[in-house]
């Protein structure tokens, strides 16, 4: 019994280690400027976690087998050891807090970095169950929107045509084009319920909370087409709320935008 349990616990450890080598699947390849730092932080944490996990489980398995009831003397009579407890507290506290502090660097880059003036602006407006993307057009300004004018087919974000800044705004459905190697400034909104704008390849996820205009930014380093998924339960077709991020060269992006503007 003791040996069987020890072997099972060790087998679980072994299986976990094998599973987490990356041979059986890992993060989708990443294409953003800050993605490498995030993955590195994950890997660092993985090392700390692996050490703790393996130590604890292997010791558990070993003790279970080693200290099984064999007739003879009584168990060791002890109520513990204060020094060891304090040492455990210190070691774990230092490790965990250091880890937490190191992890904040990427977070600070992600949220508190100043963007250059020429960053490309995109406004994301989520709705049940689609993504609307708005570009400010040549004037670089988003026009006024009015709730009453919203119509899913004709005017999905409710552009007010009386505002001159609105007239050159470009609105697209479920397809978001961005130029490669440029800072993208996002404004995330929602028309109805809470959604979450998630691009796995970008390592980017941000809830779109109704009533708020949440800022966000990223820089894509590789051209291609990537999927956008909704990560926050938003209703019946949550699992179908798909968009595409198209990372393209500057010229292609300008052409794409122009084509939409004329449309």
């Amino acid at each position, binding site marked *: 019994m003791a040996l069987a349990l020890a072997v099972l616990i060790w087998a679980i450890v072994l299986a976990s280690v094998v599973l987490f080598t990356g041979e059986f699947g890992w993060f989708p390849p990443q294409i953003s400027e800050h993605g490498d730092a995030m993955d590195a932080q994950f890997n660092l944490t993985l090392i700390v976690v692996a050490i703790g996990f393996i130590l604890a489980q292997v010791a558990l398995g070993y003790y279970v087998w080693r200290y099984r009831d064999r007739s003879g003397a009584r*168990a060791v009579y002890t109520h*513990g050891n204060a020094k060891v407890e304090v040492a455990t507290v210190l070691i774990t506290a230092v490790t965990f807090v250091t880890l937490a502090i190191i992890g904040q660097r990427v977070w600070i880059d992600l949220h508190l970095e100043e963007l250059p003036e020429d960053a490309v602006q995109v406004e994301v407006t989520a709705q049940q169950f689609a993504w609307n993307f708005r570009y400010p057009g040549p004037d670089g300004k988003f026009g006024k929107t009015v709730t009453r004018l919203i119509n899913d087919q004709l005017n999905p974000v409710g552009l007010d045509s009386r505002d001159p800044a609105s007239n050159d705004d470009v609105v697209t459905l479920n397809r978001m084009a961005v130029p490669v190697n440029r800072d993208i400034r996002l404004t995330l909104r929602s028309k109805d319920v809470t959604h*979450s704008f998630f691009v796995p390849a970008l390592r980017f996820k941000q809830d779109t909370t109704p009533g708020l205009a949440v800022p966000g930014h990223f820089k894509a380093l590789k051209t291609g087409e990537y999927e956008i998924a909704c990560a926050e339960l938003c209703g019946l077709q949550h699992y179908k709320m798909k968009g595409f991020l198209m990372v393209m060269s500057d010229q292609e992006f300008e052409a794409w935008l122009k084509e939409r503007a004329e449309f």
Partner: protein
Amino acid sequence: MSDSAHPAVHPAPTTFIRKWVFSTDHKIIGIQYYFLALIAVFTGLALSVLMRLRLAWPAESWPWLETIFPVGFEGGVMSPEFYLAMLTMHGTIMVFFVLTTAPQGGFGNYFLPIQIGAHDMAFPVLNMLSFWVTFLSMGVMFAAFFVAGGAPISGWTAYAPLSALGEVAGPGLGSGQDLWIISIALFCIASLLGALNFITTVLNMRTKGMSLMKMPLTVWTWFTTAILALLSFPVLLAAGILLLLDRLGGTSFFIPAGLVVSDTVIENSGGSPILWQHLFWFFGHPEVYIAILPGMGVASQLLSTFARKPIFGYHAMVIAVFAIGMLGFFVWGHHMFVSGLSPFSALVFSILTLAIGVPSAIKTFNWLGTLWGGKIRFTTAMLFAIGFVSLFVSGGITGLFLGQTSVDVQLHDTYFPVAHFHMIMGVAAIFGIFGATYYWFPKMFGRMLHEGLGKLHFWLTFAGVNAIFIPMHLMGIMGQLRRYAESTEFKFMEPLQPYQEFVTIAAFVTAAAQLLFLVNFCWGMFKGRKAGENPWEATTLEWITASPPPHDNFGGRELVVNHGAYEYGVPGAPRDYVMQTDPPLETTK
């Protein structure tokens, strides 16, 4: 206020109704809670099996299921609204009616008074009331399945405004959601009544000699859990009242201005969806500890009993339990890193969250220390306690990923947190419940459970839950999003389908293994070998009385406690265990 402050005076009831239905005896109430949780857990389990079915084979048709669920399985394929309704109900039933009621309402009610040598709870009538309100609450929750539109699809977290807008936002968000909120509000009230009863009992009803530092660790964890419940449930109640007013009273606490839902303009204005998340998670995070802390107490008790050793670092364990509980009130923001929370407060929440790792590490270390040098007896209860420690490590340690702001961004709302919390507050807590059941069943029903069957149940369950949840972490890393009725729509989730199938098969095997438990339980109630007073040779007070204990617990005896809770293997003692009420040993000083 007519129930007595000195419950020894309430006489044993004679009528069936007073004895088994509206009983004020904490033992009967504990059993009532336990059976309520048993009904809930098998319902929740059935829901998860159905969900797994759809996730593994989304396109498959199951005509025979259509005969059982004509609406949910129209054409033999499960509809997404049925999937989401089950998802909501699985989460709600498991969190509230299983993980909150069984360890605390069930075992806590039954054994807390006995373990401190009291004759009953401080407020027996209140105790009865809190059970019946819980019962009513569960009835209202189950009723949500049967109203027009079905059960709500907003998940157990019921994020506003999805949960606030009514049917326009999706099926089940009409009367189903109303019933959900009412049920949760009732549950809050019941939990509050229970919590204040538990705290008063621990502080005021201990028998002679039972100092706080002689209490079993189970009592400490029930006590801490009660404090958490007392302070966190009222906030959920407040949130529930606000949400109900938004839905029925036309207020806008959670609904901001300018919403357009399926081309319908919503007239509300001025609310904040983030407010719901703050209130909900201020309750929600302590709730995680409400579920798991009693399990920690049970694991400590069992490891010490069956390793025949005093618990390693008793004081450190008490401090760690309190530290986990209190820190739990200051980390709710880690559920909201990507919700638009201020990036600065996220930094603080992150560091506090990782700090919880410290007392958790202490607990693990002390459990290992308890096993070290022991003489381990492998009863089924002990197997589950060891399983608990293993699951606590596997499930807890992944919190180090999720507590970090930057790592959480990618993992948030994937299967990674799903695997994490199922492992720690789900199955680890359930292992605590199983361990407690195998350990205390002889005391509660006077008969032993079948050890062989119990061990088979353990092996299948322990291997099964690891097979389910460890791969699920990897699925989260690969990007599988949670609360998706199927993962076929996205290319990046395509490679995940084999994993879905594997997990589903593992889940089926594990679920089937639970029938062994049910068989064992029913068999044990009627056919099990008769149990003596102290079948495990344990030290705490419940083992000095008959199995099951008489109405006043100790047959009129007034107990005097002379020893700590876990005095096993004391050198010079006549047996390898010294019960708490044994006379002081002669070998002193």
